């Protein structure tokens, strides 16, 4: 693997998640974009050739024909191509309810210290603030997959003490057994949060913990982009930047239109270190 010298921070985020993909495991990916690309990248580069994914519309272990038209990451012939089964949303959720889905991968708006996820409302529900689209499939994924990987941005307004509205469950109030008491399946919950800048896991007592940062940033810079102060691991690792191999597959086979890098800032190697460019530069 050769470290790449120019890449978008969102490309890096997908690569980080791809490296988390465990071979021979099942994934429920929310929507298209990052979550789906992360699994496809892991399959194609060989990190996890036998990982399988399902989508909300019941594409079971597809081998999609890329690229997709805008929005057409579900209920389309290319997205469901060469699946082992075509189901529906209820079929997908049944498989998760039965404990057959190891991991869920989500994108979201806002996450809190207990891993609760907000995709419904910023501000005071229902009247004072901004309305968003709701949980979609994320509530089911976060409730029923054994482990949840969350992809989001490293921004103060996104890393908060308590989300304004719990759309999809993390550890709820963080007390032991809170999920089970609410009727959610035992033994499930948030597992990792990945941003372009950092990676988090959860402590034994179900609190968000910073465990790694990107090579072009620092723990302090990351903490500036958290409204609350997460637990910090004894050893905070540095995340390897994307490799040329990863980016080649990603750019030529997966996101060939560069939609991922439409937003987010670019990172370059200046000969001495990685530097982050202005957003959208």
């Amino acid at each position, binding site marked *: 693997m050769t470290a790449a010298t120019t890449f978008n921070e969102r490309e890096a985020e997908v690569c980080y998640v791809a490296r988390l993909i465990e071979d021979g495991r099942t994934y429920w990916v929310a929507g298209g974009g990052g979550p789906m690309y992360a699994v496809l990248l892991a399959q194609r580069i060989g990190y996890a050739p036998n990982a399988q994914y399902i*989508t909300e519309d019941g594409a079971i272990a597809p081998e999609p024909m890329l690229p997709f038209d805008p929005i057409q990451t579900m209920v389309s012939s290319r997205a469901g191509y060469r699946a082992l089964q075509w189901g529906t949303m209820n079929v997908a959720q049944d498989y998760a309810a039965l404990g057959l889905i190891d991991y869920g991968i989500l994108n979201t708006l806002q996450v809190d210290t207990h891993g609760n996820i907000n995709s419904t409302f910023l501000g005071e529900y229902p009247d004072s603030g901004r309305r968003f689209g709701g949980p979609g499939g994320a509530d089911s994924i976060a409730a029923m997959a054994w482990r949840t990987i969350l992809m989001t941005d490293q921004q103060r307004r996104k890393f908060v003490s308590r989300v304004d509205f719990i759309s999809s469950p993390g550890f709820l109030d963080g007390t032991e057994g*809170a999920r089970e008491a*609410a009727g959610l399946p035992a033994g499930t919950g948030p597992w990792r949060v990945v941003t372009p800048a950092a990676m988090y896991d959860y402590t034994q007592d179900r609190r968000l913990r910073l465990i790694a940062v990107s090579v072009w940033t620092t723990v302090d810079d990351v903490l500036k982009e958290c409204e609350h102060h997460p637990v910090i691991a004894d050893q905070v690792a540095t995340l390897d930047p994307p490799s040329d191999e990863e980016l080649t597959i990603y750019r030529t086979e997966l996101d060939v239109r560069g939609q991922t890098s439409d937003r987010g800032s670019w990172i370059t190697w200046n000969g001495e270190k990685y530097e982050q460019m202005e957003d959208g530069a």
Partner: protein
Amino acid sequence: MTTAANRRTSVNERGVEYLTPDPDAFRAYAREHKQRRLISKLMTERDAIAAFVEDGDYLVYDCNYLQRGPASLIREIIRQRKKDLWVGAKFTYVALALLVQAGCASRADVGYFGSRGPVFSRAAKEGRLQFYEYSNAGMTLRLRAGAQGASFIQNRSLGGTDGFRHSGACVIDDPFTGSPTVVLPALYPDVAIIHVQEADVYGNARVFGTGIAHAETALAAKKVILSTERLVETEEIRANPGLTSIPWLAVDAVVLAPFGAYPGSCQGFYASDAEHTAEVFAAMTKDQLGEYLERWVYSVEDNSQMLERRVGETKLLELRNREVIREGYPS
């Protein structure tokens, strides 16, 4: 032909209103109104919407405006200026925005909807729009319960969220295990609109590819309008009964609608129109949905005129040609 589907609602102890899940009321309705005979239900989109969508109905569409959804029927609802619809807003990017902009929808049970632009906050502020909170799969579970003649169904999700607090769900003690468990109220929509790839004139329909909850939706809804890409002979249905997704028993109207899912895709038939997709998203963002509706809905008489005047044969042919995958779809 018009039928008072009689939307009845309940309010729970958290003050949340939800459609009353009453299986016996559905049964009584079905006994009276669901046609057992094999008689043709073929009609125009105008007649179908006029006959079966009433102001105040609870409306569910399967899939959405951009993905094998009943886009032409959604436009016809808007064209006929239906009012006060309560929308099952799951898995949807732009349809709810169109219905709210047009003044058709006043309530929404949310799974997910595309929330760009000012249309929603404006309508909410003006008291024209009320949200209730579920999830995509929570909504399809509610429809599953309806399709099974039940009044409730367990859900291993939703518990502990703020969505739960603003939903019709409740927590009960599992009668067998004693553990707390979330149950959702079954959903029996007044009317469902569903786009399928093939149907006969009686409403025996086939859906190919992945989907959301077409069969459940058709069975759970009091009134069901299908639009279909293609009519097939009943002989063909009988020659392969394993392909039937929806039985005639559930269906009230069949509308022949080639490109009925436009601007969305329809697996095995055509790709989506990416330009149009961009146009409608931009209209949401820029608060230009009024102009969008004028151009694509109000200024044309029906779907076929829209396709002819606003899309054109060249584009339609291109969309057909862009659907290159044949495996698993009708030949």
